[in-house]
Structure formats: structure tokens, C-alpha cells
């Protein structure tokens, strides 16, 4: 196995496990964004540039942004009580 693919797969493995085991939702959103970037790198090493572009656009930018907005929405009504 070429070392790039092994390293990328191992990083994805560790990143996914870290994202799942993170406690607070805010930190999980940031970890999800980092994990999306690692997945994009893995897809590039697997000769799939289309998929890497799509994954970076969606999994690094849009989904963590929506998660952060949801977390904020769920926290803010409590501030007034």
C-alpha cells in the first residue's frame, strides 16, 4: 500500500472516532468540519477529485454551519429566563 493512502485512512479513522466521542455539541461541530477536510484529503489520494470537491464544499462548510446555527438556536431562548 502506498504510504499516502494508509496515512489518510488512519487519519480518517482517528478523526471519525474523535468526532463521535467529543462531548459538547459546539466542539463536535468544529470536529465535524475538520473530519470533512480529512475525508477530502482521503478522496484525493483515492484519485477522486470530483468527490473530494463535493465533500469539502458540503461536509466542511455547510453541514457544520447548520449544526452551529441549530446549537445557537437551542441555547439562546434560555438566556432570557
Amino acid at each position, binding site marked *: *500500500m502506498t504510504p499516502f*493512502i*494508509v496515512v489518510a*485512512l*488512519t487519519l*480518517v*479513522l482517528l478523526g*471519525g*472516532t474523535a*468526532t*463521535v*466521542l467529543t462531548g459538547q*455539541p459546539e466542539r*463536535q*461541530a468544529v470536529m*465535524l468540519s475538520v*473530519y470533512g477536510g480529512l*475525508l477530502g484529503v*482521503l*478522496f484525493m489520494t*483515492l*484519485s*477522486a*477529485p*470530483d*468527490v473530494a470537491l*463535493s*465533500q469539502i464544499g*458540503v*461536509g466542511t462548510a*455547510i*453541514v457544520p454551519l*447548520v*449544526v452551529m446555527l*441549530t*446549537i445557537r*438556536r*437551542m441555547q439562546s431562548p434560555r438566556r432570557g429566563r
Partner: protein
Amino acid sequence: MSHYAYFVAGWLIVIGALGIVRSRNLVQAIVCLAVAQSGTYVLLLSVGYQWGAAPPLFSEPATKPTLHVVDPLVQAMTLTDIVVSATVTSMLLAIAIQIHKRTGSIDPDELDALRG
């Protein structure tokens, strides 16, 4: 070691499911679902890979069309998979916001009553 990629894909799916089961917060469960879905992307792309093969893109003077490329069909399937999973995640988050509005809590252990 030649099956390492498939093992990583299976591990991601299982650890995502573990995250959903032990979540204390609906948003946490949705993020773990996204991790589990990413395991399927890794599986699809690993099935289509070939050692030393190029991406399935050609341009006439530089790379002539050849069959020594990775499989484009699984890449197309993964693209569709990414789109659908992003939209499903957004829909689930919208529903989680509605649940929080109506019941005030997002702990899955507390949300166990079906109200008509």
C-alpha cells in the same frame, strides 16, 4: 493489510452507530449519523480504486482516453450519496429545532412520549 480500507469503512459505520446510541443530545446524534454515512463514502471509493490509476478525466493532448483509470461509476454514486446525506442532516436538524421549541428538551431519554 490489503483490506484496511474496507475495515476503516466498517469501523466508521459502527462507531457512528455507537455515537447515536450513547448520545445525550439530539444534535450529537445527528452529527454521529453524519459520521456513519461517511463510512459508506469510504467503502464505495475503496471498491473502485486501482493501484496507480489516474482519475477518470481526460484531455486530448495531455491524457488520452484510456482504461487505466479508477472506476467513475462509484464516484458518481458517492456524489449522490453526499448530496442526499447533507440534505437529510439539514432536515433532521430542522426537526430537532421544532422538537426543542415544542418540548423544551433535546435529550433523547426524555423524549419518549408520543403525543397526539
